[in-house]
């Protein structure tokens, strides 16, 4: 047991608990203390050191403050059911109310039963250290529940703002879509002004019943000093469909796990991701897609641009159980290094125990395409302009596929600006 583990448990005692989740928390606290702390030899943490996190003092959970005007005006302009959390604390005055979303602390009996049925069940805590911590730290959480055959008209937009100094924030989201329900969820993590290195532990569990259809966005756009460990765990039942999009700008620590379980035949998963660490930043995506049953489809595409002395880690595993015949699974990870000090560790893993499947996986690390650069320069663009255009183009291919136009229109110019270019939306969208 490390000091950090002990300190975390002291912190857990500060959390205002929801009474009916007390046992759940207590069990998690015990598990957390019993778990082995990862070292450089722990496979899943090989390239992402936790020393920095261990040195972070976490004297308190954050308090809610006023929402910064600058932050407020820079949110995605969406006609949405909006929930704002500041330092992990719900901010009622910045949020809208809707029947489908409820905080755990306000759940009625029926909703409590639903939460108890799924909370901590989709994630396998024993294999995910920080999920266990999230359970132990659980103060409040959000349940999004869409009943059978209902289609949410508006997207659900969850904004998580970190402000203040060296504070911890625990975020928990449980999404339950009943049979043939449809919804769209955007999780947006940002940093307010005057923030310094804190720690955000954010966990999302998603249950998609037969025929349910979810669009899920997880946008990590925090400041450089941020430390974020997050995960999305999903169970897809028969013919369920998930279309996911992940974005991570770099930070001091940025580790995100995606655990997808195909539990019913005919389920379909599309997952796309973009990571853009710069300077000394790090981004670590670990994805694990498990095909437990036949006739499911997975299509995963992640692209990263690693600049300066930044580091990216991509570990993409696809596991195909011996019963999962007729699986179609593809995984592609492409990386662009724009500096000779930039580093990427990519590891696509395909484990196949069924004999009638169609799978492909590949990873590349490259520099910009010489022919494309020559073509652009031959039309009068400088080498620098051409490089910027090509780098952005490399990820823009994925941005172009974002279904929610408000998210697309929000991200495209902001990410273009990261590459030092002003993108005229008029030109892009006309």
């Amino acid at each position, binding site marked *: 047991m490390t000091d950090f583990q002990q300190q975390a448990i002291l912190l857990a005692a500060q959390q205002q608990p929801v009474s009916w989740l007390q046992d759940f928390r207590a069990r998690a606290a015990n598990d957390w203390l019993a778990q082995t702390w990862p070292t450089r030899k722990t496979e899943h943490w090989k390239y992402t050191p936790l020393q920095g996190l261990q040195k972070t003092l976490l004297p308190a959970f954050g308090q809610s403050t006023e929402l910064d005007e600058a932050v407020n005006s820079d949110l995605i302009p969406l006609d949405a059911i909006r929930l704002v959390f500041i330092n992990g604390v719900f901010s009622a005055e910045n949020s809208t109310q809707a029947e489908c979303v409820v905080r755990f602390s306000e759940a009625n009996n029926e909703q409590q039963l639903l939460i108890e049925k799924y909370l901590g069940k989709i994630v396998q805590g024993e294999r995910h250290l920080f999920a266990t911590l999230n359970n132990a730290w659980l103060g409040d959480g959000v349940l999004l529940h869409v009943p059978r055959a209902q289609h949410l008209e508006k997207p659900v937009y969850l904004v998580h703002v970190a402000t203040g100094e060296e504070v911890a924030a625990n975020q928990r989201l449980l999404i339950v879509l009943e049979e043939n329900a449809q919804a769209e969820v955007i999780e947006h993590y940002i940093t307010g002004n005057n923030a310094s290195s804190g720690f955000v532990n954010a966990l999302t569990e998603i249950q998609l019943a037969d025929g349910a259809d979810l669009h899920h966005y997880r946008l990590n756009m925090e400041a450089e000093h941020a430390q974020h460990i997050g995960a999305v765990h999903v169970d897809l039942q028969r013919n369920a469909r998930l279309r996911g999009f992940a974005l991570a700008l770099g930070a001091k620590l940025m580790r995100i796990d995606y655990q997808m379980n195909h539990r019913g035949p005919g389920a379909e998963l599309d997952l796309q991701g973009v990571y853009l660490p710069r300077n000394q930043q790090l981004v670590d995506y670990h994805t694990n897609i498990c095909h437990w049953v036949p006739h499911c489809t997975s299509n995963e595409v992640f692209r990263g641009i690693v600049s300066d002395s930044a580091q990216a880690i991509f570990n993409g595993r696809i596991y195909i159980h011996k019963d999962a015949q007729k699986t179609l699974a593809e995984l592609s990870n492409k990386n662009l290094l724009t500096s000779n000090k930039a580093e990427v560790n990519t590891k696509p893993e395909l484990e196949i125990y069924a004999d009638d499947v169609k799978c492909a996986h590949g990873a590349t690390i490259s520099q910009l*395409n*010489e*022919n*494309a650069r*020559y*073509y*652009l*320069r*031959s*039309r*009068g*663009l*400088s*080498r620098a*302009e051409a490089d910027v*255009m*090509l780098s*952005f*183009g*490399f*990820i*823009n*291919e994925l941005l*172009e596929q974002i279904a929610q136009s408000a998210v697309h229109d929000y991200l495209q110019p902001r990410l273009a600006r990261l590459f030092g270019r002003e*993108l*005229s939306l*008029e*030109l*892009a969208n*006309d």
Partner: protein
Amino acid sequence: MLAQQKLKFEFTVLENYRTKKFMLRITDLFARVEEKEIIKGLNLTINPGEVHAIMGPNGAGKSTLGNVLSGRDGYQVTGGSVMFNGKDLLELEIEERAREGLFLAFQYPVEIPGVSNMEFLKAAVDAKRKHAEQPELSAVEFMKLARETSKRVSLDQAFLKRGVNEGFSGGEKKRNEIMQMMLLEPSLCILDETDSGLDIDALQVVANGVNAMRSPERSFIVVTHYQRLLDYIVPDYVHVLANGRIVKTGGKELALELEEKGYGWLETGAV
């Protein structure tokens, strides 16, 4: 041609001759790709307003010439000189050559997914205008211009929004090249086997585009394998490039002769 235009044309040609105001002069050019010498003592002078066709067998160095003139990396000039509009072309970077008015229509235009065609075209036009100390076009002005130009080459406007050449057919790519040429208004256009892979309709669109751009101030080098293109773009001169140099020069009738006899008689006769 109207009588007045014709007069102006003749006057310009005469004036150029008198003042020796050539647009491009290649003198004793040698160039290699990797370790292989491809261009071996090539001479060519092009005056404003002229259309020169360069024909020749495979491997003669036709495409290499275009790449050398546009400045592509890996194409090393080992001897000779190239003057372009009074400047030493070989001293200029790829993009400087383009901004000075040299345009190479690619044989194989590059597909660049993720980079919007419209943005790319605007960046190219902006670069050219900036170089000429003209103000940049606003997005609205540019879009209007781009739409009009796409119509002139019968390219559906949907292609403006797509990635550069992404998923374009062979013909669409070539039309996109001609569209770029129209937008950039270069003084020297090099068409590198622009006819390859084109059906007869696309060939006509491309040729009409080129012909519409012919003017007393603008010159063309039309590199082609086949005489067919020259039925549509009628050249002032036809050169035969073989073994890295020009072995024969004639008028447009030379193309017909080549079509009939092939290149063999010239290659063996080359000194």
